[in-house]
């Protein structure tokens, strides 16, 4: 997918939440069903972060496997590939509970300790 556009969005979200503080880590959740190549994203992120409060921050990507609930028998499955099939009954009608995430979960920021604030 468009890793540069995603990286740009991640840096903007992180900068806004950092509110002037330096960001040291960005925790990103990426579901397996999203079309994101982690290495391409890490590379793009490094480029886009330059000159922002996010520069130099580590991008920690947590890949989320697909978890689905079968609409026919109610069982939960963790399909690894297409077809997204229920492991119990073989049904193809799964409600996807996890695996479509693409969000900034949290940041690690540098905070100046109270006694150093002027």
């Amino acid at each position, binding site marked *: 997918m468009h890793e540069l556009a995603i990286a740009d969005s991640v840096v903007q979200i992180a900068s806004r939440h950092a509110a002037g503080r330096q960001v040291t880590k960005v925790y990103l959740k990426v579901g397996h069903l999203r079309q994101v190549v982690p290495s391409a994203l890490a590379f793009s992120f490094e480029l886009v972060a330059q000159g922002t409060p996010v520069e130099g921050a580590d991008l920690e990507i947590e890949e989320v496997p697909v978890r689905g609930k079968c609409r026919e028998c109610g069982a939960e499955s963790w399909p690894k590939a297409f077809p997204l099939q229920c492991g119990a009954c073989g049904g193809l009608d799964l409600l996807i509970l996890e695996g479509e995430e*693409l*969000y*900034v979960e949290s*940041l690690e920021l*540098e905070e100046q*300790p109270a006694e150093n604030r002027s």
Partner: protein
Amino acid sequence: MHRTAVKKVVLEGVLDANDALAQANRERFDEAGTYVINLMSSPGAGKTSLLEHTLELMRGKLRLGVLEGDVQTTLDADRLARFHVPLVQVNTDPGFGGECHLDANMVRSGLSELPLNEMDVLVIENVGNLVCPAEFKVGEDARVMVYSVTEGEEKPLKYPLMFRTADLVLVNKVDLLEHLDFDLEQFLGHLDAVNPGVERILTSARTGRGLDEWCSWLESNTSGTRR
């Protein structure tokens, strides 16, 4: 100087900004009673050709309008100009940095030139691309994917998101089947593996096959929104 590390919970979707704009587009479409189709495919699968025939067949039956998306040129818009329907071309190159897909913001930029209140259907012809357009909601009612039989059987497995999010797949250029080794059943099997039971219509923009079925689909899907 000693600094402490602080964790801040964010929980913000990377595409939230786009989705908010898509929702705003959606509200404008609902207010105007316009049914919106996001038409997607790889380059050359036949979107514009199918659109040409659709505009011809639907003349006097449905009021269609088109928002054309291309990286560069007005070639597609020029082809459709002779149908005298509301039409706007959005180029992603100038101003949007040559994006390979349309997003909600780009679609929004084209809406000011379209008389939505006088349109039953807006077809957004997306940039030819099997990957990125699928990721970006623009406020559409339905996603129609055009697939050419010249593309082989395996694409649904290679580009699952595009095929998963389709509401209808037009399997196009079927007039060429006799010249190809394309295994239609195998392709449909792969399609069902990725999007079980998705509606599909075999079409040929050249011979007209399947176009009546496609137009019926359009008419029945828009009857709910039309004013």
